[in-house]
């Protein structure tokens, strides 16, 4: 008799832990033949709230890390993903990809992580300025992370889309709560496992599964969320999100991007989730160029 396979329980990822949804709800995920793949957590508003608490708690530490260190951690995520490539290819295939497409998607995801790993300690150099003000002051501007970002990840690009939107967010020092693709949630949960073994502090990335229909309003209305990124195309949801963003002047970004293309590989995506801070300080002027006090 052949050995009975152990099925994986797909749970959500909050604060470095893998709890089940507090609501106890699930939705069945089936393959194209109607076979049950998993019972996926149908995350609730309270799961989201808990995830925001975790993301806020992690923000100070993550944003305060040396940029070089963040760079190494992102690279480490890529390493971990590479080492579990087969698993992700299999999951993508379960969710309907061809073998070739699945492999391509995983490869691109790994490369994208490496790409953004490289930006961690460089984008600040691009977007910082020393501003030659007319008065006797030293004036400089630097980008700083916006804070806690709520992300509703792309629906179709299950792994690559998720990685492409999370990587610029965390490479810039933000922490996030991500809602995974509803129809293809498996590899996002597995990606959480990758994160959990990659030196990413718990709470930096929190991943929920469930429906945008139920959660988009909470994602966009939470007063302790600083920005929201929405990667789907439901017009009603977009409008609701933009309206809710006004509650605390949340930065709202609606992305319609081709996640397979190089279009999503650029530091401007990091800059979207940055605030520019300008500092002034007087410059004393004593010496030969101006001899009086």
């Amino acid at each position, binding site marked *: 008799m052949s050995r009975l396979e152990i099925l994986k329980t797909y749970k959500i990822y909050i604060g470095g832990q893998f709890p089940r949804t507090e609501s106890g709800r699930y939705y069945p995920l089936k393959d194209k033949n109607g076979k049950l793949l998993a019972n996926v957590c149908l995350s609730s508003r309270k799961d989201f709230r808990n995830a925001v608490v975790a993301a806020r708690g992690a923000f100070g530490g993550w944003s305060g890390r040396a940029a070089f260190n963040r760079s190494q951690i992102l690279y480490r995520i890529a390493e971990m993903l590479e080492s579990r490539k087969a698993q992700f290819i299999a999951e993508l295939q379960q969710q309907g990809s061809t073998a070739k497409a699945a492999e391509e998607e995983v490869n691109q995801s790994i490369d994208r992580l490496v790409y953004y790993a490289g930006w961690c300690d460089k984008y600040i150099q*691009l*977007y910082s*300025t020393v*501003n*030659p*003000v*007319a*008065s006797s*002051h030293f*004036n400089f*501007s630097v980008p*700083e992370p*916006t804070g806690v970002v709520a992300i509703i990840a792309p629906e179709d690009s299950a792994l690559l889309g998720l990685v492409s939107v999370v990587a610029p967010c965390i490479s810039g020092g933000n922490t996030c709560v991500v809602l995974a693709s509803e129809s293809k949630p498996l590899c996002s949960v597995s990606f959480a496992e990758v994160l959990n073994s990659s030196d990413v502090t718990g709470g930096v990335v929190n991943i929920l599964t469930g429906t945008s229909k139920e959660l988009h309003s909470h994602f966009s209305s939470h007063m302790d969320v*600083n920005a929201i990124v929405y990667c789907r195309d439901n*017009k009603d949801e*977009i*409008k*609701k*999100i*933009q*309206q809710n*963003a*006004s*509650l*605390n*002047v949340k*930065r709202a970004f609606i992305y319609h991007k081709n996640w397979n293309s190089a279009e999503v590989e*650029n530091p*401007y995506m990091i800059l979207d989730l940055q*605030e*520019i*801070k*300008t*500092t*002034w*300080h*007087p410059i004393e002027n004593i010496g030969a160029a101006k001899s009086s006090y």
Partner: protein
Amino acid sequence: MTKKENPKLQFNTSWEYAPAPESTDHIRLKEKYDLFIDGKFVKPAKGKYFATINPATEQVLAMVAEADTSDVDKAVKAARKAYENVWKKMPPRERGKYIYRIARMIQERAREFAVIETMDGGKPIRESRDVDVPLAANHFFYYAGWADKLEYAFPNRNPQPIGVAGQIIPWNFPLLMAAWKIAPALAAGNTVVLKPAETTPLTALKLAEIIQESGLPDGVVNIITGAGATGAAIVNHPGVDKIAFTGSTAVGKIIINAVAGTNKKTTMELGGKAANIIFEDAPIDQAVEGVINGIFFNQGHVCCAGSRLFIQENIADKVIQKLKDRLETLIIGDPLDKNTDIGAINSKEQLATINKYIKIGINEGAEIYQSSCNLPKKGFWCKPTLFINVAQSSRIVQEEIFGPVLTIQTFRTIEEVIEKANNIPYGLSAGVWTDKGSKIFNLTTKLRAGVVWANTYNKFDPVSPFGGYKESGYGREGGIHGLMPYLNL
């Protein structure tokens, strides 16, 4: 050495400064101002006009047209036509030369602008002359030079204008805010429909005259006047691609709501409640001066005003004594007098708001201290006010007052003051006073605010980006970063 009890300085001196009013002889104001649309001054569709008054005398300065939706529509269409047919196609270098020309013409007529700004808004002539008008001209001059260099600002992009920008500006820096809005928009290749605040429309209309004289193609800049309804008509007009707003957080939120679901881009410069922090090792006298400048500049009608003062406990008594004495030397009165430090409150409504908060402060049990100055009989005035012994939970500490009212809290440790400084929904600006460099860099990193002034306060420059975190808004004005809100990258 024996210490005399409570030595008191006497600033009520036998040597008084004689009035030194700026001349208004050369100021020519029309009785009636129309809307500036498509390069011409045109009457409003409904023929309605409203009065703009001098808040220091309550006298009517001029009647100003009230634009309704059809006027707004006309302006937006003019802007669209100018965008598609002229401005977008113009070689960037030529675009820049028009903006340079506007800068120069403001400089030439600087004194006239300063006097009108002061008459219409109530701010001291010293400020409109030395701050508002020169900065406005400089802003045009700075952005003019960007027009033909945009591709260097954004590597690996092909920056393109957005289209028609609807711009709504507040009453606290009428001309300067117009410059902050128009200059980068034009440099980036957009056309503009701008609405100044209803209490301070005159310098924007004077700017329209300059724009007309400069030969800027018709419709590139349209300036229309009116109150909230006019602003709403701009926000809701489908032909507008971009809304740039400076004003209160409450109105900002309404605008964000209104454009939800459309493709309009927005930038928001909203309210603030800045912490100004003095450490024991600060250059104390300069810090005191910075606090005064931080809260009483422009009667405190400044979104980045340093309205929450935090003093390290061991120097609090000394600093408060100095602040009280400094209050006595502030001259409150005729805004046109060159010696006036604090002018008139911009409007009756704003004065009522400020007085409401002063009452709240007193009811909350805070210790109030006001200058002993006399206030003029006519006009809208408020004495410079300190509230001592306030708590973080006091409403006067939490809410933006937008007037010459300073709350004073003490703190013991750096952790405590960082937490309290950030413990507010706003994040526009902050001030830090210490002689220790490493402390400054720690603070500027930890404070969640778009501008941090270290050992200085309320400094502005066209090259320096300005804008907020959190509920203070998003997008930057000034510097290279100030181009981004007007470009598709």
